[in-house]
């Protein structure tokens, strides 16, 4: 084990951590913004829209993230109209392709989580809000969403870790994330596993940090549901 190589290249790994955190964070944020309206539409079974969103969710949850990424990064170049359009500036870039793939993937999983949380809201909460004379929008903004998002916390925490781990595939399309840094180290010094092992430890550290943060959040926001 050549620890010295890892320590001498700490900047490489720091850059990798930043890249992973940035990609994962942005993808989760965009995915969440997709998931709120989509999840509500699905929970309310709005005709046509609900079926369309269901098809999207089903397709992205039923296939590997790696295939989704390849479809966007390698696949789209097949079409002339894509290469001639304004979007090509983004779509030929590995970082943008990874972000698009991750955001769409996370959006699908989060939609399902939010749909579940909204659909299982106790009827009494909504009836109570209506009885107080709140409008439809007010019910959502003040009662239903705050309640549903709280109850979605444990599952969403899993999704965050899932996305963090899934983002490692970005290194396959040359992005210098944590695993990318590990691959670079291995290639640079012709070592077999030092880079991968460092990457594994870094992923593990971030995972435990996230798990801890979500446990704190759950303790804070789900206190009313805890057993007394």
């Amino acid at each position, binding site marked *: 084990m050549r620890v010295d190589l890892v320590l001498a290249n700490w900047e490489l790994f720091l850059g990798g951590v930043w890249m992973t955190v940035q990609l994962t964070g942005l993808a989760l944020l965009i995915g969440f913004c997709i998931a709120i309206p989509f999840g509500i539409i699905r929970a309310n079974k709005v005709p046509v829209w609900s079926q369309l969103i269901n098809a999207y969710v*089903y*397709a992205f949850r*039923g*296939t*590997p*993230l*790696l*295939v*989704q990424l*390849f*479809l966007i990064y*390698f*696949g*789209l*170049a*097949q*079409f002339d109209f894509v290469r001639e359009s304004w979007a090509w500036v983004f779509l030929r870039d590995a970082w943008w392709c990874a972000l698009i793939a991750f955001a769409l993937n996370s959006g699908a999983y989060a939609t399902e989580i939010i749909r579940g949380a909204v659909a299982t809201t106790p009827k009494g909460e909504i009836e109570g809000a209506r009885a107080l004379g709140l409008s439809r929008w007010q019910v959502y903004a003040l009662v239903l969403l705050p309640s549903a998002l709280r109850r979605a916390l444990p599952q969403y925490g899993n999704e965050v*870790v899932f996305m*963090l*781990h*899934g*983002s*490692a*595939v970005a*290194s*396959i399309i040359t992005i210098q994330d944590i*695993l990318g840094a*590990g691959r670079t180290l*291995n290639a640079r010094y012709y070592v*077999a*596993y030092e880079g*991968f*092992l460092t*990457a*594994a430890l870094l*992923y*593990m*550290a971030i*995972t*435990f940090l996230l798990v801890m943060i979500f446990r704190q959040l759950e303790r804070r926001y789900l206190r009313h549901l805890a057993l007394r």
Partner: protein
Amino acid sequence: MDTLIQYAPLLAKGTFVTVMLAVTSLILATVLGSLAAAGKLGGGRIAKAIVFLYTSIVRGVPDLVLILLIYFGGQRLVNTIGKQFGMDYIELNQFFAGVLAIGFIYGAYLTETFRGAYLTVPPGQGEAAKALGMRPFGIFWAVNFPQVIRFALPGYANVWQVLVKSTAVVSVIGLGDLVGLAGDAGKSVREPFTFYFAVFCVYLCITAISQFLFDRAERRYSRGFSDAR
């Protein structure tokens, strides 16, 4: 579309490799998961510590990283040992490395599934069997085990669905699975979208068929319970 038909045998071969990889990994994961669950439920302090370490490590590391680590690190390890015995350079088999990695990962997830299912069986049933004079193994086999299957099935189905999708990353170490073969073909005929879309559809089919089969199995094992149809 014509090229897809032309390459259909290749895609079929890739699908076969992917399914075989997934099924073999699931078998290994089931064995590891059962052992770890048994260790967590009835083992001593050391067994419990090992299981804790195993499940914590696996849950913290992405599947791709573990696969690369097992493949390249394993290659190095095997050859370092091999050199001592004067053996030639050994090339590790990608399928084998993939099964090892994926089985190892999902064994950790199944540990919790199996443990939870075992604990759901009311203890009174085991006590009743004991009072009837049944031996410990008989109690497990006739009383606990059938119910563990019933309680574990939904979780088992979930793990399988995630596992299937996980097999895609084994193509990174050069396995000729569905993703690997279709990727090569798509590159050589300059139609990557067509081929990756075919892969996308095959995976969708696999998950849909699995869902159907697991739903049936769940219904079968829930016969005799009020919410069974």
